[in-house]
């Protein structure tokens, strides 16, 4: 495999070299022709022998040119044959294709304008700032005809700056912000450590359209933006708050079966079944209960030339269990006891709708989650004393976008304007959690690899004035 790839790259280099030599010879010939033409007009008689020499030189060059052209054609033929052999060997499962590495990153510029005296004035950052939000690298491999794998890693400067604790003098709590700076004792250089987030890592087996399997850590197949993953793909800058708040787990560790049926021309019926650890305090390491989370997605799509329509729903039931372990005795024998400290069941329903027609895009997502406790923890400090009651979370947004018909002037560059309205209620037992956020934005794609976005969002709580803030954000998202 390596040697075949090496031969391919060698042949490509040789082919490029042949092209350069050809270009050089063409240049020489043109120069000679031009100088020959001017010589004819002012040619002295004694220059006849020189003209003969030039003629011979030209003829010689022409034969070299012809021979190089033939070799160049041979190289092209060989290259084509090697490419075909490589493809053939891959398709015959004789070899893998190696790893393909690609990814995306984005840079934000953000400024929040909060209402004086509102809670957000204290919570939101006061200054404008640049942020490197995502730097995601993909490692994709195709091992056999039907077996592939993908690993997506997100590199981040975090946890630098993570605020562990606000100062709360009444409770005697001091402000605590994480500093990741370390010292290289050899060079005395100080630098800040970052982090790596595993966004997904799974193997995929795709033997036939109606039945495929994924095993590993996979993206939860709910909604639109969680599947159409990544800032260069997404129209808006921010993912909807339902994603930010993880109302549905963004990814799950387990297995996923999926498939597609074709009930009519251009019409797909997709299903996905997920079985995973579900949510837990350490679900990406291990499950702390025997109840595996299960989910089912059904989606019907129509993929016409001018009109594309899709509607889907994902249902999920899973248990969250937290435990602690305590030493119960040392003498006469060592004993450890496990105690469940928190347990709840999540019932989730997520629905999505997408219509694309004649430059318009209308999409909506809605998530409903009921959290029912069997062992309640004490309530969050912000939400008052007592224990956490069962609660409902509701999130939804609608987005309308239009790609301006500017092909005549912009060629393949696109400008898409959009408006959206987002509703979020993480816990319906707490008024503070109900927010509305209208967003107005523009997305300019100067090439397929780059997206420039600008959006203005106004976030406000419905029940009172505690959250009121304008957020202006610009983003440059680049795929590579």
């Amino acid at each position, binding site marked *: 495999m390596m040697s075949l790839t090496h031969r391919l790259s060698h042949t490509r280099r040789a082919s490029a070299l042949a092209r350069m030599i050809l270009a050089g010879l063409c240049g020489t010939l043109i120069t000679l022709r031009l100088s020959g033409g001017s010589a004819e007009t002012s040619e002295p008689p004694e220059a006849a022998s020189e003209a003969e020499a030039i003629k011979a030189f030209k003829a010689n060059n022409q034969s070299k040119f012809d021979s190089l052209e033939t070799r160049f054609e041979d190289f*092209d033929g060989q290259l*084509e044959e090697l*490419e*075909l052999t490589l*493809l*053939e060997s891959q*398709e*015959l499962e004789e070899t893998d294709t190696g790893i*393909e590495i*690609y990814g*995306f990153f984005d840079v934000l510029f953000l400024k929040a304008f909060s209402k004086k005296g509102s809670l957000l004035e204290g919570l939101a950052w006061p200054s404008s700032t640049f942020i490197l939000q995502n730097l995601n690298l*993909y490692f*994709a491999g*195709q091992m056999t*005809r*039907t077996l*592939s794998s*993908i690993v997506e890693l997100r590199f981040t400067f975090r946890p630098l700056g993570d605020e562990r604790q606000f100062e709360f003098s009444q409770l005697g709590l001091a402000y605590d912000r994480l500093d990741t700076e370390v010292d290289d004792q050899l060079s005395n250089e100080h630098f800040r450590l970052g982090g790596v987030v595993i966004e997904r890592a799974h193997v*995929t087996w*795709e*033997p*036939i*359209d109606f039945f495929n399997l994924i095993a590993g850590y996979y993206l939860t197949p709910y909604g639109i933006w969680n*599947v*159409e*993953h*990544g800032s*260069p*793909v997404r129209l808006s800058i921010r993912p909807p708050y339902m994603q930010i708040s993880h109302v549905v787990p963004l990814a799950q560790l387990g297995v996923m079966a999926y498939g*597609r049926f*074709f009930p009519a*021309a*251009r019409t*797909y019926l997709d299903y996905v079944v997920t079985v995973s650890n579900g949510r837990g305090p350490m679900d990406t390491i291990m499950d702390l209960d025997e109840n595996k989370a299960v989910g089912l997605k059904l989606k019907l799509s129509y*993929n016409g*030339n001018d009109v594309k329509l899709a509607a889907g729903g994902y249902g999920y039931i899973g248990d969250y269990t937290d435990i602690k372990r305590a030493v119960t005795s040392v003498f006469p024998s060592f004993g450890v006891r496990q105690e469940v400290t928190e347990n709840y069941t999540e019932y989730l329903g997520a629905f999505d709708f997408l219509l694309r027609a004649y430059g318009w895009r209308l999409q909506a997502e809605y998530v409903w989650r009921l959290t029912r406790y069997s062992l309640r923890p004490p309530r969050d400090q912000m939400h008052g004393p007592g224990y956490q009651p069962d609660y409902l979370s509701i999130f939804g947004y609608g987005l309308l976008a239009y790609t301006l018909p500017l092909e005549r002037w912009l060629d*393949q560059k696109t400008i898409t304007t959009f408006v959206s309205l987002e509703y979020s209620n993480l816990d319906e037992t707490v008024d503070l959690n109900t927010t509305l956020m209208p967003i107005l934005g523009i997305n300019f*794609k100067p*090439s*397929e*690899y780059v997206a420039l976005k600008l959006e203005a969002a106004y976030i406000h709580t419905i029940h009172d004035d505690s959250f009121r803030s304008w957020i202006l954000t610009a983003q440059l998202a680049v*795929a590579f």
Partner: protein
Amino acid sequence: MRRTPLHFYLCLTLFGALLLHTDRARAEDPEDIVVIVHKSVAKKEVTIAELQDYFLKNRLSWPDGQKVVPINVKEDTPLRDAFRRRVLGMTATQENRYWLDRKIQSGHKKPPELGNTVKAVYRIKGAIGYTYRKNYKEGVVTIVFVLPKE
């Protein structure tokens, strides 16, 4: 009753033959774009909607279960442009964007590109490609679709 003259039938037959000939000539225009599949593919006809599905990897297997291997001709050729426009309904940039999105979403890669698609389709099991009719070799690959004229 008056009998129809013989020369009327003759003219009718000649006209019919001419029509048939014109039709056949049109059907076998060497510049036609024909969609070809590997001999192992049992499907003998595809629709334009299915073609879109195969070349955009929305359909990954043939009805008999074997994997579909779509093969494109090289970029920046009139054949590729015509196929992209008439079958996929896309421009080059739109197609590139589509594959970039698919790669980020699911890791699916765009189909390989080769100059001689007849040779490639002949050699690779489950392959589907396209070429001009003049390049088609009978018995080597099977034609499953002829692109209608623009």
